[in-house]
C-alpha cells in the first residue's frame, strides 16, 4: 500500500493480460497495482526487475511464474502453480493457493498466508515456501533443495522421494512419503526457521515445529547405482 500514490493502475477488465505482462517486462514504473484479475491465468509472469505488483482479487494459473527480483502480492486466492519456477524475489498470497504452488522454484520466497493444496513445492529446487495454514497431499514431492515451512498440517505422502529440501511442519502430518523421515531439530535448524518465519511475517515459536527430510535410502542415493 505504501506505493499506492505513484503506482501504475491496470484494470484487467479492460486490459489484456498479455499487454499487462509486456508492460511489466519493460516497466517505466517500479510500482504496479492490478484490478479485476477475475481468475485470469499467467498474470505478472516472467518479471525480471525489482518491481512491486499488487493484485487485488483472485488470480488463475501460474501467477508470478518464473519471477526474478520482483515482489508480487495477491490480495486474494491463487490458482494452480503460483510462483512456479520462481528464481528470486518474493510472492505473497493473502488467501489460499491451489495445487503445485511454487513448483520447481529455484529461489526467492513464496508466502501463502492461507492454505495450499496438493503438491505444494513439488520438485522445488531452492525456493523457500512458508505456508500460514495447511498443505495438501504429495507436497514437496522430489524436492531437491530449499525449505518448506508449514504452520498448519500436512496431508498424505509428505516429502515423497525427497532429495535435499528441508521441511518444517508445526501441526500434524497425515503420512510421510517414500524415504521421508523426521529428523532432529538442531540449533542451526531453529535459526533458519526463525529467519524464514520472520521473513514471512509469522510469529510462531520455531521450537513448535518438527523437521522432515530425506532418509537417502532410495535407489539413486546408492553409489553402486551411479553411472
Amino acid at each position, binding site marked *: 500500500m505504501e506505493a499506492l500514490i505513484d503506482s501504475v493502475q491496470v484494470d484487467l477488465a479492460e486490459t489484456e493480460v498479455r499487454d499487462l505482462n509486456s508492460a511489466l517486462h519493460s516497466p517505466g514504473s517500479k510500482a504496479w497495482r492490478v484490478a479485476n484479475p*477475475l*481468475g*485470469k*491465468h499467467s498474470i505478472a509472469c516472467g518479471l525480471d526487475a525489482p518491481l512491486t505488483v499488487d493484485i487485488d482479487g*483472485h488470480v*488463475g*494459473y501460474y501467477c508470478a511464474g518464473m519471477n526474478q527480483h520482483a515482489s508480487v502480492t495477491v490480495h486474494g*486466492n491463487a*490458482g*494452480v502453480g503460483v510462483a512456479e519456477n520462481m528464481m528470486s524475489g518474493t510472492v505473497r498470497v493473502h488467501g*489460499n493457493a*491451489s*495445487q503445485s504452488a511454487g513448483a520447481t522454484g529455484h529461489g526467492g520466497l513464496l508466502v501463502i498466508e492461507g492454505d495450499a*493444496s*496438493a503438491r505444494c513445492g513439488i520438485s522445488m529446487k531452492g525456493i523457500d515456501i512458508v505456508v500460514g495454514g495447511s498443505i*495438501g*497431499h*504429495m507436497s514437496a514431492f522430489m524436492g531437491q533443495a530449499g525449505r518448506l515451512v508449514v504452520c498448519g498440517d500436512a496431508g498424505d505422502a509428505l516429502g515423497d522421494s525427497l532429495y535435499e529440501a528441508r521441511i518444517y511442519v508445526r501441526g500434524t502430518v497425515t503420512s510421510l512419503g517414500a524415504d521421508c523421515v523426521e529428523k532432529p531439530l538442531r540449533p542451526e535448524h531453529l535459526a533458519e526457521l526463525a529467519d524464514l518465519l520472520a521473513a514471512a511475517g509469522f510469529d510462531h515459536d520455531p521450537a513448535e515445529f518438527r523437521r522432515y527430510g530425506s532418509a537417502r535410502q532410495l535407489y539413486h542415493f546408492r553409489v553402486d547405482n551411479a553411472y
Partner: protein
Amino acid sequence: MCGIVGLHLREPALYPRLGDLLTTMLGQVVERGPDSAGVAVYGDPRMTPPGSAAVSVLSAAVPARRVTALVGARLGTTAGVYDAGETLVVHAPTSVEVLTQAVREVLPDALVIGSGYDLAVLKGIGHPDVLAGEFGLRQAQGWQGVAHTRMATESAVTSAGSHPFSVGADQCLVHNGSFANHATIRRGLRAQGVTFDSENDSEVGARFVARQLAEGADLEKALRLLCERFDGFYTLLVSTSEEFAIVRDAIACKPALVAETPQWVAMASEYRALAGLPGIEGARIIEPEPEEVYVWKR
C-alpha cells in the same frame, strides 16, 4: 483436459437467470475443451414442461415438427419438441418409460442421450460458444445446470461422445480426466445386462453410478463405490433432480473449485468461470479434497 461448470441454485429468484449465468461460466472453460460441448438443464419449462416427461435425442434425422406429430400420434396425446440443433428434446404428458419407448419406436436411428421429468440434455460438436447459441442456453431457466467442454483423449470427437452422460432418469454425469480400467468395468456391466451407447470411458462411470442407484445406493454411496472400483484420473460432477455432487480421485490433479453462498452452489474447473456469479465476493470457496464425496441437496 476438459472443462466443467455447474450451478445449483438455492434462490428461486435466480431461476430465470440460470441459462444466462451458465452460458457465461461455459464461456470461461472453452480453452479446456474446444472440440465439443454439452449441457444439462434442470427445470426449464420450454424443454421440460411441468407435468411432462422429456427425452433428449441426438441425430433424429427427422424434422422437429414431424417428431412432434409422430410421437403425439403414437401416444395419443399432445407432444412437443424443443429444437436445439443436433439435439431434440421431446416432451409429453406421460411417464418417462412410456415416452422413451415411443421415441425409440418412431425414431429408431436416434440416440437417446437423456430422460427425466426435469432434465434436458443438449450436445453437439464445435465451439462451445456457438453450441450454447444453438442450444438457446442463455434463455434457459431452472434450478440447476451443468455444462462440459470436451478435449477428447480416449475416443472420437462425436456428439454422442460429448458429455454429459445421462443414463438414468434425471441423472447426469460429467467427467474431467480419464478412467484407466473402464474396459474391465464395461465388460462386467455388460455381463450384467447393461447396454452402452459409446466407447467413451465416462459413459462407463455414468452406467456404473446408475446401476448403483438402481440397486438402492444413495448418490454418496454410489460415488464412494466408484472411487473403489475405478482407476485413473477424474473430477466428476454428478447430478439428479435433487442433488449436486462432486468427487475427485486420490491424486486430484484434475482441477475443481466449489463456491457456495446462501443463494447458490457452483462448481468449476477454474475460478475464472465463477468470477461472474452474483455475490461471488462473499462466497465460501473450497477445493474439494481427494476421494471425498460432496453432495448438496435441494
